[in-house]
């Protein structure tokens, strides 16, 4: 058998060139890494207007004149932090909402400690969310507010709306799992085997680090190797490094999940799929999705490997409202909020949808006012 012909000279030449380029890159990288880097996240100004236990309510200072009368409350998941919606100027869902003239509130769930291990979904929905929503209603002297939930926060928002339909005007769910009976996402497959009770007994709260490790293991080739190779390749690019560090800051800022909430979420949702079947019980009451009669905008990602479309799209068919809309964007779980393309699509769509429903209410209110005035005459 003849020996394979390899152009050794060419390879060596290329290797030498690569080595030179790498050396040059690392020389520049030294300046970048040791220089001043802007890696702050969540920089949009806000005020904490209400607090209950560890849970804070952020109110963002409006930038332009309000175009939607009803305030919007955003409820993030208990996994990772809401800072993802405000990663950096120019890549911020929060800023885009403010630019659209929304009056924006957001829940900051804080960092649960050991004392929070007994807090269940009931406490998060019927105590924390309810107190926050009552505060906003009272402050604005209104009966109903707009509610937007993200991922697990979306599931909480769906439960809340079903249990307190009189307090919500419009509901928006983004990458929200409600149907857990699917094999499309690895999380759905893995969580079926988890003994949540034992995990909670061992750890008290579900450690954020373990959850993060689980997320990294969904695609170790990309998330644990290729991502950092990409970083090294661009280590001399200041803007790239700043954006990369911002993302790293967000990803690894992982609060623990209160033990009882984690247990119930795994057992009732992932393992028994009770929510979509109207069988889930929260705070002693059955969560009946048919009681959700408010308009619903349901947005999810086509390539979401954590919450696949199959986990989201059933919701609009199961609730009692006729005013529903599904939007499937060509993106993944996080890309929906941070990719430039989705930044241009997501917020304008939500704002427009809310404006249309705000107008309807305003028109009806105006009509009612005119009618009562005419009657009085």
């Amino acid at each position, binding site marked *: 058998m003849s020996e394979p012909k390899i152009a050794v000279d060419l390879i060596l*030449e290329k290797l030498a060139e690569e080595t030179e380029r790498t050396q040059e890159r690392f020389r520049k990288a030294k300046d970048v890494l040791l220089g001043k880097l802007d890696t702050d996240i969540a920089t949009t100004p806000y005020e904490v207007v209400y607090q209950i236990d560890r849970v804070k309510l952020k109110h963002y200072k409006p930038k332009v004149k309000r175009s939607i009368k009803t305030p919007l409350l955003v409820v993030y998941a208990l996994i990772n932090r809401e800072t993802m919606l405000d990663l950096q100027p120019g890549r911020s869902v929060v800023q885009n909402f403010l630019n659209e003239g929304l009056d924006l509130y957001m829940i900051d769930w804080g960092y649960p400690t050991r*004392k929070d291990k007994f807090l269940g979904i009931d406490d998060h929905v019927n105590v924390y969310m309810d107190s926050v929503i009552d505060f906003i209603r009272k402050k604005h002297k209104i009966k109903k507010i707009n509610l937007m939930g993200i991922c697990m926060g979306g599931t909480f928002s769906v439960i809340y709306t079903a249990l307190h339909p009189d307090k919500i005007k419009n509901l928006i769910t983004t990458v929200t799992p409600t149907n857990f009976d699917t094999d499309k996402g690895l999380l759905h497959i893995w969580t079926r085997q988890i*003994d949540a009770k034992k995990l909670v007994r*061992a*750890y008290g709260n579900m450690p954020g680090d373990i959850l993060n490790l689980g997320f990294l293991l969904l*695609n170790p*080739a990309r998330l*644990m190797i290729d991502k950092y190779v990409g970083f090294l390749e661009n280590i001399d690019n200041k803007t790239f490094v700043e954006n990369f560090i911002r993302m790293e800051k967000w990803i690894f800022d992982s609060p623990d999940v209160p033990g009882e909430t984690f247990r119930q979420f795994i057992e009732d949702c992932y393992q028994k799929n009770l929510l979509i079947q109207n069988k889930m019980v929260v705070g002693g009451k059955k969560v009946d999705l048919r009681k959700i009669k408010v308009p619903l905008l349901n947005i999810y990602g086509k390539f979401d490997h954590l919450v696949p479309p199959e986990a989201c799209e059933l919701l609009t068919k199961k609730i009692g409202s006729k005013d529903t809309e599904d939007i499937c964007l060509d993106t993944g779980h996080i890309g929906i909020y941070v990719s430039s393309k989705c930044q241009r699509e997501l917020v304008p769509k939500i704002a427009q949808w809310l404006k249309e429903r705000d107008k309807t209410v305003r028109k009806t209110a105006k009509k009612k006012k005119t009618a009562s005035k005419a009657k009085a005459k």
Partner: protein
Amino acid sequence: MSNGDQKGKEGDIFTSWMKSSIDFWTSMGKAWPDLVGMFQSGNTESQPLEFLKSWQSMMKMSEGLMSALYSSGTVASALSGLSGLPEIALKLSKTGWDGYFHLYQQWLEKSVGGTKPSQAYVFEKLDENTFKTWTEIYEKEFKQLLKMPKIGLSREYQERMAEFVDKFNVFQTTMAEFLYTLYLPIEKSVQIVQQTMGEMAKKGELGDDFKKYYKMWIKTLEGHYMTLFKSSEYTKILKKLLDAVEEYKIAREEVMMDMLQNLPLPTNRDIDDVYKELYDLKRQVRELSRKIEQE
């Protein structure tokens, strides 16, 4: 042989097993990132992955705890409630001991990239068998000692300590098996890329763009991981690992609480009781406030 001598010997065997066990798994914990590091382009320092770091720190913690147990003769005193082991048990242990050292040697040779490289398929088989054999030796030879009934005033403490040692061993084996499972796609994808490159070289199509080969490897690796993660075997190993971690942590905390009991410090159990009471009281207060507001 006097009763005291026999007890000493039991303690020695047990102590040696624990020490060697810790050394063995610590070596594995240190060796594994080096293997991974080989494949991490540009990462010449071969930084251990995050979860390996936490494994190593957990190892250190357990090592400290175990050292405290065996070096101060605690194991001997823990076993003092036993009336003494028959000679036959010691012989059985010795047999297992020899087997264990044999495996230990094989493992180390493989894990640190020793001078005797095995063929890929033998390599895989050997490892799978290693986990199985290791578990068998432990289950047959050592677990029995730990599971023997405890008697005397300190029997409950002995039971918790034996449980802790048992769960530690199970955890280490399961963790190693899990890490090995995660390592397999790396090995397989490298083999595939090497084969492809060999074929390209034969055809004279081997280019000089290294990035192309890296991308080829990452794509292959991603595919292998996806196949692995979707398999029921992986789900089983993952479940086994989670169970082992949880049981080990629970057992370790039980021993810690026994130790803390004699110190003027509250244990997790004490704190949890207070937190639970606080939680119930807060709920009650909220409920009562609501009722008052409604009235």
